[in-house]
């Protein structure tokens, strides 16, 4: 049976429900922000959808000046670096995310440990990205 727990569902829920929806293992309770059909902890196949609160703390980050082709098309580059990093979700797991609402030209102003919230307001239609901004 084909699994419904995949990246297409992740990004469509992010776009339509404005919610970070991952999975929870019904056998051992392991949480994964990335939908997956199999539990990496107990190796069970009984996953269910799990909506995360969208509250997080900034674990680490980087401000990128040499940008991929797709980000260059959005106007980012040497003169306009963007911030991306890893957030620790309130529920425990960490996930990689764009960091919006901060000054990529001034990394010293961005503080790890600060409170973040899911930012699903302005998602790219074709290639939606998970993003957080300071709470």
């Amino acid at each position, binding site marked *: 049976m084909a699994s419904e727990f995949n990246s297409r569902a992740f990004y469509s829920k992010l776009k339509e429900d404005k919610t970070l929806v991952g999975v929870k293992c019904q056998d051992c309770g392991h949480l994964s922000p990335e939908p997956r059909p199999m539990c990496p902890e107990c190796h069970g196949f009984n996953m269910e959808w799990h909506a995360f609160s969208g509250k997080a703390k900034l674990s680490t980050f980087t401000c990128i000046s*040499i940008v991929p082709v797709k980000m260059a098309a959005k106007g980012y580059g040497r003169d306009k670096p963007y911030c991306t990093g890893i957030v620790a979700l309130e529920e425990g797991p960490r996930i990689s995310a764009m960091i919006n609402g901060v000054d990529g030209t001034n990394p010293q102003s961005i503080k790890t440990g600060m409170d973040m919230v899911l930012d699903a307001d302005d998602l790219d239609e074709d290639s939606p990205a*998970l993003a957080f901004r300071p709470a």
Partner: protein
Amino acid sequence: MATINKKRQLGRQVSIVGAGLSQFGAFPEKDSRDLFVEAFQDMVQNMDRGFDIEDIECAYVGNYSSDLFEHQGHTAPILADWLGITPIPVTRIENACASSGSALREGVMAIASGMYDVVLVGGMEKMTNLPTDGVTDVLASAADGLYEVPAGLTFPGIFGAIAKAHMDKYETNLDHLLKVAIKNHSNGALNPKAQFQETVTQMMERRISRAQERGQEVPDYKTDMDFLNDPKANPWIAWPLRLYDCAPITDGATCVLLVSEEIAYNFTDVPISIAGIGQASGKPLHDSDELTSLSAAKAASQQAYDMAGITVADIDLAEVHDCFTIAEIVATEDLGFFSPGEGPRAVDEGRTARDGDHPINTSGGLKAKGHPVGASGVGQVIEIYKQLRGEAGERQVKKTDPTVGVTHNVGGTGGTCVVNVLRRES
């Protein structure tokens, strides 16, 4: 994790009896197959007692992405044809920047299994066909394309995030990172195959004299650090990493000849044995236990040390995967040379220099020697092979009689790590 810690042994011992590498750099006129033949020729010409190419029974070649760099898939049979060794089996191995580390491992196991006695392993990458943003995209495809890349993470970006985490957790600062680059360029300046054969001081002086020649404003650099802190000379790539924190984009190829221990002395009086091999896989950085360490590197090194029956105290030198300066610092901690957080101070104190107690990257590392990604793992093995045989010329380590060397080859951002222990037996 239960089974990975089981102590493993090879079915029989395997030795390296020949090594060759192409020039590393940017070569618009060459394709990857040409680079590989150049490496092979270098090996053939440097064999102690020569050998018959027809004796090669099997080959493995590491190659990350000729598909995207050169629009060429299925590269292994092309190499077999170019070396004139068809119809022997040749297999391409892809594990991102650890591709040739993994290819070497396959070659070792092919001999240890008893199936073959003479196996060629190597790697190649032709990267400079693409502009920098194209290379950035290709390298990023070694990260998770569904959950890391869409978040805007690049390959330097993920190591930038590791550097920031290391700076938060320990007393690591930007100068520590740059000192790794200064050290590795000082080693690369002594390596005739390196992409950059200049010290940072020489590069600084070249920039000053170029400004003078062109009648431009002459920069007022007093030290290497002045030069490296000039954003025009050393621009940001992925804060806190700058240009001089990053390994370059490189064309190059490498190969070594592996043989069973029984016949090693037919080829040379000084074979280098592969005393321990380890390889492990790891999760994406965000799902790793620590943001300041690569779990796969710890697991792979433990396997390799256990197989070789050594401890860190037995290791004379190492080539580690310095795709970024922070990666070298983290590697020296993951390999157990220094405790977590002590890596930066070890750099400060010169302990990782050629005359230090833990010489790291005497070849210049990926930073200065260059990083043709699929070729780098075997490139590291070649440097240890030369050092243990006393053939590293001006960059030979100061320690007398080095006998044990380690290589540490990382794929992507820690998804793969291959660690080898090499030992001179005579």
